[in-house]
């Protein structure tokens, strides 16, 4: 009972710190910017619906897979533990009678609703702005959005556990490495989360008129789902193992 209460207190602390952090504001800025762009672009005025879906789907695909999802996952994933480490407050958690794996679990659980909420919330808002075509996109794409968010989140938690300055590293990785690797010819692109996310989005949207660009080979949807799930579980597991054994000498 005591352990459960301690864990609940840690979860509350982690959620509160993430929610009221500068990062929330920083993530909200690009989200708002994209909303304004959608209004300006006028996807809802495009006809026929197939054309509108293709245009909106391509926009979503680019903006979410390459930008908004990594940013949201980065904003909450790396800072959940990374901020405690950088601000040297992690020492107060590591000297409490809470097992280390529970410390990381609390950080992960606190970041999941915030990142998924922000991604899905902004996605729903954009869909609402576009109208019927938007609602169709919401219905089709939500599992892919959640899958990608969780995969990025797991990767960035691993970054936070392993590296001293995870935010900078994750930013460079998400905005440059991922895009670069995902667009490489051959099988190297299979190393990028972005590639599986995009494959999934193209696969899901194919029946509704979303066209796969020339030269972009997509993997089957089951494989894409499997890879995203594997990356998520794998990264979280490695992060747990790493956190259990890692000694943070830089805390004091």
């Amino acid at each position: 009972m005591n352990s459960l209460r301690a864990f609940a207190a840690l979860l509350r602390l982690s959620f509160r710190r993430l929610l009221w952090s500068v990062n929330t504001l920083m993530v909200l800025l690009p989200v708002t910017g994209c909303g304004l762009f959608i209004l300006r672009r006028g996807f809802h005025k495009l006809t026929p619906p197939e054309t509108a879906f293709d245009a909106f789907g391509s926009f979503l695909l680019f903006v979410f897979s390459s930008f908004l999802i990594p940013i949201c996952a980065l904003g909450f994933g790396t800072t959940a533990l990374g901020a405690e480490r950088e601000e040297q407050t992690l020492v107060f958690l590591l000297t409490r009678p809470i097992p280390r794996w529970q410390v990381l679990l609390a950080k992960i659980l606190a970041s999941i609703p915030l990142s998924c909420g922000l991604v899905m919330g902004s996605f729903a808002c954009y869909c609402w702005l576009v109208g019927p075509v938007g609602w169709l996109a919401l219905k089709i794409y939500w599992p892919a959005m959640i899958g990608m968010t969780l995969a990025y989140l797991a990767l960035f938690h691993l970054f936070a556990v392993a590296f001293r300055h995870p935010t900078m590293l994750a930013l460079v990785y998400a905005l440059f490495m991922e895009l670069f690797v995902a667009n490489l010819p051959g099988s190297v692109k299979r190393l990028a989360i972005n590639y599986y996310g995009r494959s999934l989005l193209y696969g899901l949207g194919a029946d509704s008129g979303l066209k796969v660009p020339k030269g972009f080979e997509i993997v089957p949807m089951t494989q894409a789902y499997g890879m995203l799930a594997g990356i998520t579980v794998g990264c979280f597991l490695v992060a747990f193992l790493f956190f259990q054994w890692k000694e943070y000498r830089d805390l004091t």
Partner: protein
Amino acid sequence: MVTIRFRRRLLPLVLNDDVMTADSSAVAECEVTFAEVTKFYGAVIGLNDLTCRIGPGITGLLGSNGAGKSTLLKLASGQLRPTLGEVRIGSLRADSTAAKRLIGYCPDHAHLYEEMTGEDFVRTMCALHGFPWDEVCQRTTEVLKEVGMSDRARRKLAGCSHGMRQRFKLAQALVHDPQVFLLDEPMTGIDPGGRQEINDLLFRLADQGKTVLVSSHILSDIETLADRILVLGRGRPIASGSLPEIRRLLDDRPLLVEIIADDPRPLAADLVALSQVQGCDVQGNRLRVRTKQAAEFYVQVQNLVLQRGHTIRQMQSLDEGAEAVFEYLQQGKHAS
């Protein structure tokens, strides 16, 4: 009214004792045991083959920067694991979750959850021990009163002075009523009045039979506080014992003392006649005296002033710094 404080010395610091063969049933919950502990940071050694048992009462941990004080405290608080050997709190491994219920750790840095108020911070730290909310609030109120922060508890930590932060840090270490207190440089940034209050608080804890391990690189901080002292140098214990024992070791240390006098030559003539003085140089109105047995020397100088009427404007030791003290003790250790 005169208050006489009797300081309990329940279990002294025992160094180089064969702690592993000690009867484990006799190991108190509040005892910190280091058994042949070595800690490496890559190729650098942080702590080198330390075996000691630290029991109830106040133990001062003294050493210059990089001596291994913080490493020792981090090992005792379970933040680090020893490369070799074992660290235990009572019968529990120091890095186990159960052992963390027994310790209260106060880090040396001043980084706190800046967005919180002091009260919020202490309450949150208490809640992380799993107490019911009513108890959390009650304990927080009591501990804030104990560290003298009740009236400033609602202040944001971001706007708190260094001394106030130190007190909130102490409060978070005390709030769950642990058996072992590990305090890393707790007096840093605290004014003399505040130091006395914190000293009194630590004396009270020691009187309750708790183990208090306080680190500092300033000898005077420790000597007013600790029953026993463990001096570390380059990761090794270089001296240990009660304060008089350590003082005795230091008294034999050669010391350079500078004296500014109105008439230095007659004073120099009187000083060189003293058995404690090894040499004396005169430069203008300044005298530089090399002495052994510093305590005795100071008494003799006082006598000379009273008996022969010398006028001394200023007298100061030129190598009283912690580094010089530890260097001396370390040399003694190597020589022995």
